[in-house]
């Protein structure tokens, strides 16, 4: 299936290659470079590139292109999903997935890739199993390793691969047994010029951090499971229980994992926490423009809106911005043409306002379209959909775990058209 993998950074340097079958010359990447140049933006590189003898399937993540070489028919999503899993594994292991960390840990990276694929077919992709096979580097361990020359390969043979629940390793022990769940909801919305909602929906995930000894069997139930329109689960969740009882029953993996993601569709009314009053105009003469943006609270359920950031992708002709913000700071990057206004906490008494003039390239025609605004925000202690976790029960083990649930609402792809 997956023949080879090349890692290429944003500058076009190929800094790692791995082959699972016979070796394929890296000149095959020339086709990729060609497509890369044509695409201008890295986002626009087609994920599947056809070359005379191979197919290149690539993903772009953390400023690195993961380019895999395929020779025969395979579902493209299969490869894409796998490459993302690789990137996630790196992130899990090294804290971040960047060129420098990969270069620093090239041996571990190689060992990981070796375990994850066998002859191009995924073998062990569960983080728990991999961690049993290859220990993730920690500062302490890497120090000890350099002194003693001991290895980062697990001495014990992994058992997780053999068990019927491959995502959990056996013999987990903690002194503090704890299980924390973060309900994170993101609002995806498009608002039009007048402030009416064109489209809005909520995407939620439940991230879990479970550190429990033994083989706990957990059951998580909601107060209002009917809200959920569509769900997807970590493989540990028993589908049937969800189907029949709307409870989430699972034997958790050890550590951090995403338990489920859900979707609350546009059919339900989605509360929009903020409104934006904006007026951006460019003048026909004098090559200048005016900008006036005010943000105010709308439906916040009595919570404060924090981390409010407004991002505007300005037209190419905008040279600079001379603005005045009543709250927070703004920054205009004349190269990328991005205006970022970092507001911070939203004060309902005194609404933040950004106002001033834009100067345009002289002589150029005034931009056709007003740029749309992207809003970023955060509301603590609130799931905007109203979803509530009812209770968490544990079976199979006798100790009493600490349990906790946290709710956060964020703006996802929240856009205001102007």
């Amino acid at each position, binding site marked *: 299936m997956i023949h080879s993998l090349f890692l290429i950074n944003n500058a076009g340097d190929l800094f790692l290659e791995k082959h699972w079958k016979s070796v394929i010359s890296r000149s095959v990447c020339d086709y990729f470079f060609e497509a890369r140049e044509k695409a201008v933006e890295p986002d626009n590189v087609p994920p599947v590139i056809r070359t005379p003898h191979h197919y290149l399937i690539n993903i772009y993540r953390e400023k690195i292109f993961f380019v895999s070489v395929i020779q*025969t028919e395979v579902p493209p999503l299969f490869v894409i999903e796998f490459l993302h899993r690789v990137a996630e594994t790196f992130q899990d292991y090294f804290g971040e997935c960047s060129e420098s960390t990969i270069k620093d840990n090239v041996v571990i990276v190689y060992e990981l890739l070796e375990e994850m694929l066998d002859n191009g077919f995924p073998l062990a992709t569960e983080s728990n199993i991999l961690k049993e096979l290859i220990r993730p580097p920690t500062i302490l361990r890497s120090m000890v390793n350099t002194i003693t020359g001991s290895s980062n390969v697990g001495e014990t043979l992994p058992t997780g691969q053999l068990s019927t629940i491959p995502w959990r390793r056996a013999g987990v022990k903690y002194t503090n047994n704890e299980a924390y769940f973060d309900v994170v909801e993101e609002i995806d919305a498009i608002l039009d010029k007048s402030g009416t909602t064109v489209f809005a929906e909520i995407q939620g995930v439940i991230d879990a951090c479970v550190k429990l000894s033994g083989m706990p069997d957990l059951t998580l139930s909601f107060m209002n499971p009917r809200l959920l329109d569509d769900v997807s689960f970590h493989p540990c969740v028993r589908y049937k229980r969800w189907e029949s009882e709307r409870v989430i029953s699972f034997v958790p993996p050890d550590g951090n994992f995403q338990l489920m993601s859900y979707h609350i569709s546009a059919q339900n009314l989605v509360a929009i926490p903020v409104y934006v009053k904006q007026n951006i105009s460019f003048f026909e003469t004098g090559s200048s423009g005016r900008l006036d943006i005010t943000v105010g609270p709308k439906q916040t359920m009595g919570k404060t809106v924090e981390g409010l950031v407004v991002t505007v992708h300005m037209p190419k002709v905008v040279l600079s911005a001379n603005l005045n913000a009543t709250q927070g700071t703004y920054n205009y990057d004349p190269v990328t043409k991005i205006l970022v206004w970092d507001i911070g906490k939203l004060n309902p008494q005194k609404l933040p306002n950004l106002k001033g003039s834009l100067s345009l390239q002289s002589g150029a025609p005034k931009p056709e379209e007003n740029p749309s605004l992207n809003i970023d925000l955060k509301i603590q202690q609130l799931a905007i959909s109203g979803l509530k976790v009812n209770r968490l029960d544990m079976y199979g083990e006798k100790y009493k775990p600490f349990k906790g649930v946290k709710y956060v609402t964020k703006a996802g792809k929240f856009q205001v058209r102007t």
Partner: protein
Amino acid sequence: MSASSAFSDEKGGSASEPEYGHDPASGGIFSSDYKRHDDLKEMLDSNKDSLKLEAMKRIVAMIARGKNASDLFPAVVKNVACKNIEVKKLVYVYLVRYAEEQQDLALLSISTFQRGLKDPNQLIRASALRVLSSIRVTIIVPIMMLAIKEAASDMSPYVRKTAAHAIPKLHSLDPEQKDQLIEVIEKLLADKTTLVAGSVVMAFEEVCPDRIDLIHKNYRKLCNLLIDVEEWGQVVIINMLTRYARTQFLNPNINESLLEENSEKAFYASDDEEEEDKKAEPATLAKRKPYVMDPDHRLLLRNTKPLLQSRNAAVVMAVAQLYFHLAPKAEVGIIAKALVRLMRSHSEVQYVVLQNVATMSIKRRGMFEPYLKSFYIRSTDPTQIKVLKLEVLTNLANETNISTILREFQTYIKSMDKDFVAASIQAIGRCATNIGEVRDTCLNGLVQLLSNRDELVVAESVVVIKKLLQMQPEQHSDIIKHMAKLIDNIQVPMARASILWLIGEYCEHVPKIAPDVLRKMAKSFTNEEDIVKLQIINLAAKLYLTNSKQSKLLTQYVLNLAKYDQNYDIRDRARFIRQLIVPTDKSGALSKYAKKLFLALKPAPVLESPFKDRDHFQLGSLSHLLNAKAAGYQELPNWPESAPDPSVRNVEVITLLERVTTLTSIPDWSKCSSRKDRKEKKVEKPFYSDSEGESGPTESADSESDSGSGSASASGSDESGSGSESEESGEETESDEEEEDEEEEKKKRKKLDKTKAKKQAEESAESEQSSSAEDRKRGRKAVKNQKSASESESESESSESEEESEEESEEESESDTNVRKKRTPVLKQPPKQSKKESKKETQEMSLLDLDDYEPAPASASVTPVNFLSSSLVSDLEGLSLTDTILAPTTLAPSGSIKMYELLHRIKGEGLAVEYCFSRQPFSPEPNMVAVQIQFTNNTNSETKNLHIEDPRLQSGMRIREFAEIDVLAAGESVTVVMGIDFCDSTQAANFQLCTHTRKFFVSIQPPVGELMTPAFLTENDFKKEQGKLMGMNEILEKLTLGEKCVNEHVIVERVTATANLSRVPCGSDKECRFAGKTVSSGCLVLVTVTTKEGGGAQLTVNCEKMLIGTMLVKDILQALSQ
């Protein structure tokens, strides 16, 4: 630029004289003496593992950067047997990378792997096989073949999985091994573990995807295992099963597509055509047969559906394409939601999903209509995503939603991304052609765009307007005029050419303007682009033909200009046209037809989606994405005209039966075995249909069609409900004959058989899984035949043997009791009623018990049975099966009860305390484990006030203390019973034992086997419950029986000694089954020990509580292998 840097990199790597000094991997420190890797060789030769490791790490880093490290091969290969695991692993990495280049040297390492293949540790065996098969050296093909074959029958499923992985490796190395490999694949396909399933199907797809016949027997198993297979395997299996289903089942939409055609015709047909249609209709109607879905087809759809909830986008896509290609139209809709969900994922995932959605939305527009807004475009989307979303929006446009879509399109036109704007304009054009109502609106909108300042926008609009105008030019001469004016301003060649073409084509509608335009164009001819020049010539020719008076000279002028143009196409065109339109002496007959040639009515272009008809590729495949066949793509077959024989998927039991009959000459034995077979067949039903039972209420559509399918198979094959009735009547006559010379008991038995048969018939009628029912019936038929054959000989004997068998071999008696057990409830009530009641009971219980697997109800419904039969059972099975309810006083008899020490007499200052698990129910609280405690006073004085104090327990655990012992005289001992609820865990119960003088801290920790009480199940119940506890709840272990475990009896003894379980009767002498339930929560614990030739055995434990299951396995393994 970037390409060149990479290229030079590569050159550096592969050049004959590598410049190692430049290698950044060397870390700078060693760079000076890095030449020729001498230092690395030295390090590899040293005795220190740490040096070796360091060297290997650097070598791997070199490989990772694409540097050549092949000259180190001899030094590295020596370390293949290194003890250090990491060194070993890195050597493997190196070996796999370079073995192909250095075949001879690579052979040195082979023996190490061959040794590894024999290692007792399964993980080492697996890794040896993995590396061995990854070494691409042709010489070792026979060794690999042998290793794969051996590993394919390994005890460990993990090794078998590795074997499956090795198959495609060997196949690519040496395709001639295909036939042998197919044999291995066939063997592995029959494997029942989820671990192997995904890998072997992957091997199947790579080696022999056309051998669909290998799948038949495993089809149902694969469907049922699917949900527990790891996610990558799921993708492969689902894709393969899609192809399989296309060859084996009928098109579920066959009638609908006919219907659709008809309605479509009627919709578009003009009045005079309609009559014709009416005639045609009965013909098509007659052709239509009632479609009934094959139950196996349904099974596939049902078992894949939950996977739409997978977190893995590839799995979701695989299920979606399966539904798109296989499901009845009404059911395809469910995939839309999941696909829309994937749109939130990474942009690459979005890209692929949108491509597929685009294809689907052409065929099944309705499916995505509710999610229209999810395809709205954000300014931050990458262009390729925007364009695809636009495609989907266009496909979804219809009369009702067009206004919203157009409004949305209007905002897109203002975007800064010009490519996207162009695509939006084209999309508007397509909407306008497809939906007549909005054509004028769109046209007006597009005309407004003509005054846009951006040229690209104008140009694109012109091109689209041109296409739209072609549909109805008469009404729009003013637009044509408007566009004629635009020619002065528009510079984009394509747009100019389009305008000129329009004017030329419809010059009759704008007779005054056209010559003027030509005049202007003639003036600027030399400065135009080629494409525009061609259209100027075209316009001139058309005008010449319609209005030669005004344009004759202009045309001549243009043609003359063109004659000397640099482009030969233009010169050619000019010559060609001059000959055609200007009549000369030489010009032949053609010029007469010039007008017809140029001014022929041209059909309006059809604006089609580029995704039209892409669905002949399997969706989600690479080929579909590229719209071209990729190497190794397996064509999705067309539905067969008539369904192939569905019975090929039946897992054969009949052959087994036949074998039994031929082997056994003793009639009574054969009878017994036939009964056994019947049981086994019956057991199959829950295995295949359990998911059905559970998902039944949620899927109403399913159950409907299922019931239909039942009747379908009925008409298809003669084994229908009525068939079974006739069978029954056959049996009745038999029994009538027998009644004359049979004694009383025998008669009864026959009747019971009959009622049993009736019950079975009823069940089969109820069962939705008609195929399994068929199976069973066929089996029964065979039983009957055989019966009648052996009847005459065996009749007299069988009744006697019935009684004798009790003292005879155990296994025989078991099967007998089993029959009795089944019979006993029937004795009391008519079968129907009893069934209903038990059902009701189950329901009630399940209301109380929120547990998924409903173990309690099952056992509850069984209890009355064993209540009645318990005495019999105890007679037969020995005391180990003693019913606890009936005989509370008896102790577990198998082996002596193990005593544990609670307090040693020295530590206890003369007071010795021992305890044992009496295995009796603790009467005050049934969910407590009874612990029998024996106090012995070894002192000379009496001990007073013995009692428990201050129990320190894990949460949930409870203790029921024994009553205080007032006085324990010197030298005497006393026994008390206390109850502890361990909450089904092996956590110790800590408490203080107090006397009148002292306190002792003691703790009782139960072995896992004591946390359960026997449960009495019939064989059928056992199988049914086991079927419910598959997947994660099942633990399989292979073991070698200890020397003393020679016969079944010992095994039973050992198991029951280890755990407080009761034996479940079982027809097979190779199997021992045990059942119990946990004391505090009542979860079922099922244990099966299957013995094999040569002392091997397999242990299966099914328990919902995985922890208990694992611990129990460990204990029993220990007990059996001693």
